[in-house]
């Protein structure tokens, strides 16, 4: 797998979530994503960025343009040093929310992308990595 481009952005305020979305949209458009897929990855990033900000008390987003053989893609990593998720399976379940939200963010984000990887340690923080191929 080839790394074409990499950058990282802070997620420390709700304005940062808006900025993160805009950056993901720009990169996705430049990589040649169709409008539907642009919208999907932007929406997924919005969910995960907000999770990192709301639940993880702020974190960072790493954005990478990657190439694997003849396909290109976008890899996003969301890291926070929040309280962590004790039961990931439960957190991924639709309708489960600890914050009064719809409880669709994490599971929804997973359904919007091609690859989804989550790692969480209670007391240490959470890292979510997603990939969407063009």
């Amino acid at each position: 797998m080839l790394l074409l481009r990499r950058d990282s952005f802070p997620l420390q305020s709700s304005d940062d979530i808006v900025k993160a979305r805009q950056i993901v949209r720009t990169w996705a458009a430049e990589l040649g994503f169709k409008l539907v897929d642009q919208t999907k990855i932007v929406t997924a990033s919005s969910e995960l960025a907000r999770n990192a900000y709301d639940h993880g008390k702020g974190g960072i987003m790493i954005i990478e343009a990657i190439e694997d053989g003849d396909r290109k893609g976008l890899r996003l990593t969301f890291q926070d040093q929040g309280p962590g998720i004790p039961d990931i399976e439960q957190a991924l379940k639709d309708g489960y929310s600890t914050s009064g939200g719809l409880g669709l963010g994490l599971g929804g984000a997973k359904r919007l992308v091609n690859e989804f990887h989550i790692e969480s340690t209670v007391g240490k923080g959470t890292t979510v990595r997603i990939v969407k191929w063009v």
Partner: protein
Amino acid sequence: MEKQKSIVSLLKAKQDTILQEWEKEQFSAGKFRADLISPDELKQQMRDFWDSLLKALGQEERVDLSDEGWKPVRSLLTELSKSRAKLGFTPSETALFVFSLKKPIFQLIQDTFQNDPARLQKELWDLNTLLDSLGLFTTETYIRSKEEIIRRQQEEMLELSTPVVKIWEQIVAVPLIGTLDSARTQTVMENLLQEIVAASATVAIIDITGVPTVDTLVAQHLIKTVSAARLMGAECIISGIRPQIAQTMIHLGVSFQDITTKATLAEAIKYGLSQVGYRISKME
């Protein structure tokens, strides 16, 4: 006190030379913004600042900008920075107003105390500290007034971007544009509910054509608004759901199940009119 006074009297005695040199600095190539300020205005500002600076130096023993004696200097610089921020000066250009005074003053101090190195160093250091803090003060004020401008514009935008329009008797619509953050959604919700009462509306259309991303938070805000409108006796229609948004929402798992949705605002208006007993038809 003694020493301070002597510096003040020295500055006063040589003020013509200093002002002349300072003027030369201010008007030197690349520094003077003839497009933003007139020479007379700048000279007046320099004169005023110089007078208040000498006065403060003469009055106050310590150089502490928060002391009462420095108040005139502070308010003068505040005015200057604010007006410069509005006029479009850069922060550097604004701070340069003070910093360009360094050269003529330091020159004078150097000439005066060249035979007394210890004194020379002490005076240079004191004046340097003073001018630095005054320069930083202009920068801080400049940034604060810029922030003030941004904040005001944000508030204006918040108001501007959420107009509730009356479509027909009993029908109101709100076209949403841009990012729906929490503050804006709150404004939208309040405006819409108020307008429902004011217009005795029974149909409220929320058009999201201009919303680039509908994630779960936005969806939740929309659902809440619809529920609140419903409690007030108005039926809500969400229109302007573009194909890519629809597909994304399906994957997210968000459903607007018992909410009436339409692809376009035109469809929503047509449907709304039929709900209150009107029909759109072509003239024969």
